[in-house]
């Protein structure tokens, strides 16, 4: 698999990371190398091997349906860059 500059910019966009064109070009060989390294795994024959769901053989623990949390609006909003009237206030996101 080979990565081009457009792919780098697209991945960066999806991850909301600002990348200039020059940075994107510089990242192309880096990402190519990373993917090439991981692709070595494809050399192993895994036919007949069930996919591994978790590294240690555990399953989910479940909790009871009881309200044990919440009710602390100020703590929830404490780190917000902007909060008004008990809401987070963010740049308008409607078209």
């Amino acid at each position: 698999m080979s990565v081009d500059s457009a792919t780098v910019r697209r991945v960066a966009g999806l991850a909301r990371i600002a990348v200039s064109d020059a940075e994107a070009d510089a990242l192309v060989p880096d990402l190519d190398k990373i993917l090439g390294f991981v692709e070595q795994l494809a050399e192993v024959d895994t036919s007949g091997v069930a996919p591994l769901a978790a590294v240690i053989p555990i399953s989910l623990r479940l909790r009871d349906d009881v309200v044990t949390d919440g009710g602390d609006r100020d703590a929830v909003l404490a780190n917000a860059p902007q909060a008004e009237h008990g809401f987070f206030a963010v740049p308008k996101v409607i078209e």
Partner: protein
Amino acid sequence: MSYRIQGATGEWEVVIGLEVHAQIATEAKLFSGAATAFGAEPNSQVSLVDAAMPGMLPVPNRECIRQAVRTGMAIEAPINAWSRFDRKNYFYADLPQGYQISQLYHPLVGEGSIHIEAGEGAEKRIGIERIHVEQDAGKLMHDQHPTRSYVDLNRSGVALMEIVSRPDMRSPAEAGAYLRKLRAILRYVGSCDGNMEEGSMRADVNVSVRKPGEGFGTRTETKNVNSVRFVMAAIEHEAQRQVDVIEGGGRIVQETRLFDPDSGSTRSMRSKEDAHDYRYFPDPDLPPLVLDDAFLAECRESLPELPDAKRERYISGLGVTAANADVLIAEVSNTRFFEPLVAELARRTGKAEADVARAASNWLASDLFGALNRLGKEIDASPVSPAQGAELLALVADGTLSGTLAKQVFEIMLESGEDPGAIVDARGLKQTSDTGAIEAEIAKVLAANADKVADYRGGKDKLFGFFVGQTMKAMAGKANPAVVNELLKKALDG
């Protein structure tokens, strides 16, 4: 019979699939201990997990899983005892995690179906592809500030079932019937309150059109439609729009659209081209969900009798008419009134339930529903209880009340909430079969209307009703109509 859109180039068939998001009825959220109650102060039901603070770990709520499993069983779908949660990645202001925890690859519930009747006895099974469990997002408000959107995370992390139908529906009526039936099943099971106004149930509507017999056309998805009526309107509008576009030489683009309830139309929701690349992967915070046999057995054993089974039992077992049975089973709250009503009426009259159920269903479907409609009340808030209804019907069955008197007593019950027996005693509304008293009134009526008596005897049979009316009036409505008829016949015909 089939629903078709008449276009300039001929008939078009509509193909519909629905993705329903149903909020699971629990006290706490899917992965946190914050409350789920509707209408709370903004951000007052948010844990640090729901706000996606670094280092917080999700722990699933057993009841959310249990209710989704029971719902799956109710649509006769296989339950996957091994399932897993995945991350669906996208950025939006209502999603603090930057991903929604959902189930793409290994959903909890497999393929099932539900049976619908879309009017005129048109029966059909609609396939359900899967049900999976996922988190809801927060709520955005755009109209409170000129340059800011306000975010309320109370809904963030609330458990949803996404119930995905197959593209098996072919008309707005079928889609409406499917939604109503699905909502009824959810309410029977108790897994969702089905309250579309409060957003507990919302539908994404997939629509495409094709010439009958051809392959599927390109579909559009209209998001978050929140009433049965709107879903039907959105389908009608969107199908017509697609036909117009295609016949005008255009092409349908696979896109997300919004329904505008005010105009009844849909419009394109541009943007987020990239956002459709969700880069799903298994959530490393959550090991696989493995359900044991005891858990699954409890889910199955705790399932109530479901609408289809109930309808069958009401009709064949209890002798209720098909029309009444349909009305009764449509909402579980109706059956919760009807069944104790029948049981109590059977007890009071000493008869079998099958011998009293039809009368009870008639009274419920016409008298009580009529009154509730008039009062603008739901059956849960009925001023007359099942026990009181049964007492009233028993008073009719044993001849204490005529039909007319029963209606009078019923009106008083609606206003006062008193028991019918007490009303009858206090107001002397008992029907009388006292032949002496009735004969005395008949004699007076005949004496006062000698001309009509002559007409009647001269062949004007229809006047009989007039005499019945006059006698009943003289008796203040309390005479037993059968006795009045008999005595009048005797007096008039000699």
